[in-house]
């Protein structure tokens, strides 16, 4: 176990691709750290540099304060679980798990005991003599995790370890991995493009985009206080709705503008974040959207646009309503049991207190919306 530090790490592939740009952060001893981002964001490159599978073009990687930048994976005592094709296909599960111990010259008795322990821990005792081709994808990943944990590594690298499994199994392994990590206290880094994985499993995480670190923080911080529009849209169970309003003007004490040729009502308080050319970039989480049917009165002091219901999907407790206005898609989580017809005309209303405001050009966050549970109209957003 170790603390990990990246100092101004850069990765170039050839001279054309700057995959990782000047990234620095520290992972505490025993922490479960996430690297989150869309594909091509450089998260996997960071993990592979931590593992020693890629060279660091520039910068330094420290384990417990000592540089490992020039060390091979063999020298770093790290373990890794790969996305797929992780198990040696010509070996049984037992031989796979024992392999790192075997090349470290442990005795047979020691190996048998350690393999037995870790196999029980991951509930794979009954699979121990099967080969990879005789196991399901989930079983293979369990064995791969067992092989990674059997020798108590300094750092456990998880490269989308459960991305290829079906939904139910993924949810189960998510929980198991988190429990395992907590009980063993192994410093771990998981790479994922799935915000739910990042949110549920990690202590802290880094969101990356195009090789640039966007934000580091606890899942809660990143969910509620995203530093920019990208993070707010990428992170969370449902991504943030963004509204880019142009041509703001005032008439009779009310503010309005246009959004994709649609009329948008803007609450007075949001006007503080408009830029010099009368543009505004605001956003809100789907649970903050109030869907107003025709004939109903929209709540006062809200951001409003009209659109048509594209589809409504009941999710049990709430209904996920997708509304289209022009080529903009707005998602709303409606806690009330209501029926929606396809193409029904509705008004999207967002209370000003739930609105996030972003800089119209840099897309940096200017103001955070209040999080769901402290909104005044609590019964509407019991999600």
């Amino acid at each position, binding site marked *: 176990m170790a603390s990990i530090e990246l100092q101004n790490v850069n990765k170039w592939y050839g001279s054309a691709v700057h995959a990782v740009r000047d990234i620095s952060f520290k992972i505490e001893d025993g922490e479960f750290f996430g690297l989150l981002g869309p594909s091509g964001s450089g998260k996997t490159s960071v993990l592979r540099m931590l*593992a*020693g*599978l890629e060279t660091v073009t520039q910068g330094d990687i420290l384990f417990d304060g000592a540089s490992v930048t020039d060390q*091979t*994976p*063999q020298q770093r*005592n*790290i*373990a*890794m679980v*790969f*996305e*797929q*094709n*992780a*198990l*040696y*296909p*010509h070996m049984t599960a037992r031989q796979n798990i024992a*392999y*790192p111990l075997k*090349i*470290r010259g442990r005795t047979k008795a020691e190996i048998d005991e350690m393999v037995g322990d870790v196999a029980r821990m991951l509930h794979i005792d009954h699979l121990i003599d099967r080969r*990879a*081709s005789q196991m399901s*994808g989930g079983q*293979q990943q369990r064995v791969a995790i067992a*092989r990674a944990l059997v020798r108590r590594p300094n750092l456990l*690298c998880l490269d989308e370890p459960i991305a290829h499994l079906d939904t139910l199994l993924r949810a189960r392994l998510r929980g198991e991995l988190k429990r395992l990590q907590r009980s063993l206290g192994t410093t771990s880094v998981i790479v994922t493009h799935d915000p739910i994985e990042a949110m549920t499993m990690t202590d802290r995480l880094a969101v990356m985009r195009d090789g640039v670190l966007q934000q580091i923080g606890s899942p809660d911080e990143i969910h509620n206080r995203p530093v920019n529009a990208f993070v707010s849209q990428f992170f969370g169970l449902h991504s943030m709705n963004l509204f880019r309003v142009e041509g703001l003007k005032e008439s009779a004490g009310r503010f309005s503008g246009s959004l994709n040729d649609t009329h948008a009502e803007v609450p007075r308080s949001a006007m503080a974040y408009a830029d010099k050319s009368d543009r505004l970039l605001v956003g809100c989480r789907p649970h903050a959207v109030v869907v107003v049917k025709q004939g109903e009165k929209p709540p006062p002091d809200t951001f409003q646009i009209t659109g048509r219901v594209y589809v409504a999907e009941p999710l049990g407790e709430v209904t996920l309503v997708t509304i289209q206005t022009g080529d903009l898609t707005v998602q709303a989580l409606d806690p009330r049991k209501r029926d929606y017809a396809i193409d029904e005309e509705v008004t999207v209303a967002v209370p000003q207190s739930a609105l996030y405001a972003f800089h119209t050009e840099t897309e940096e966050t200017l103001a955070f919306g209040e999080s769901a549970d402290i909104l005044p109209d609590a019964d509407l957003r019991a999600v």
Partner: protein
Amino acid sequence: MSRSLFNDFLRHFALIVILMAVLSPLLWLLLTAFKPYEELFNNPPTILPESATLVNFTEGWEIGGGKGIMDSLIVSSISTVICLILGFPASYALARRFPPHGQLSFTILSLRMMPPIVPVIGFYLLFQELSLFDTYTGLIIVYTFMNLPLVIWLLAEFMRQIPKSYEEAARVDGASWFQLFRDVLLPLSLPGVLTAGILAMIFAWNEFLFSLVLTGDAVITLPKALASFFLFQQPNWGQLGAIGIVAFGPLLLLSYYMQRLLIRSFSIELGGR
């Protein structure tokens, strides 16, 4: 007759004609090997031997067939082993560090395409100087030179099929280069290694030109022994047939085995997720 039945008939007829064209010389060789000398010149010729005998095999072995087989075995098996030992790591480098259809890959393969007559004079002069003329060592070197490009190229193709994550897993697990090769890459590419080995063996076994030019009386490989039957005496077709069968048999077995290996190596890939 329905259309599909007619098509079936045509297809089988064509197959039978082709098979007869291909197999009849082999069959004739086989039958001749068991005929006594006198029966060979019967007119009209007999098809099945009237008085079958093994005398062609024993005599053929004694007049040079035996030495031919031993020498061919020594030279082709040792050169094949050297080809595999050198070719395995080289093919890894070619597969992992160079583009799949790049210049290096092509250059290596083009060495194998060179007509053997081109380097043979150079080898002859060189071997005279180095006292390698008419030695096992000399011929082994030449066959290694001849087959190594093919082995590297073939094995590299196999290596490219192996997902990188296996070796990355091994490196992370702490395996040294040697352990990585022995424990992971070799078992995974074993069908390829055996296939390349069998091909190298067959080529060395059949090789005639180098053997003819670069050896004298001390080393006489099988093709050279067979050819010498024509040169110095009235050819005894029965003995030729017998030695031919013995020379051809192992190749037939190896080819059959190789075919099964290739099928298995494909099914391993499909089975492994």
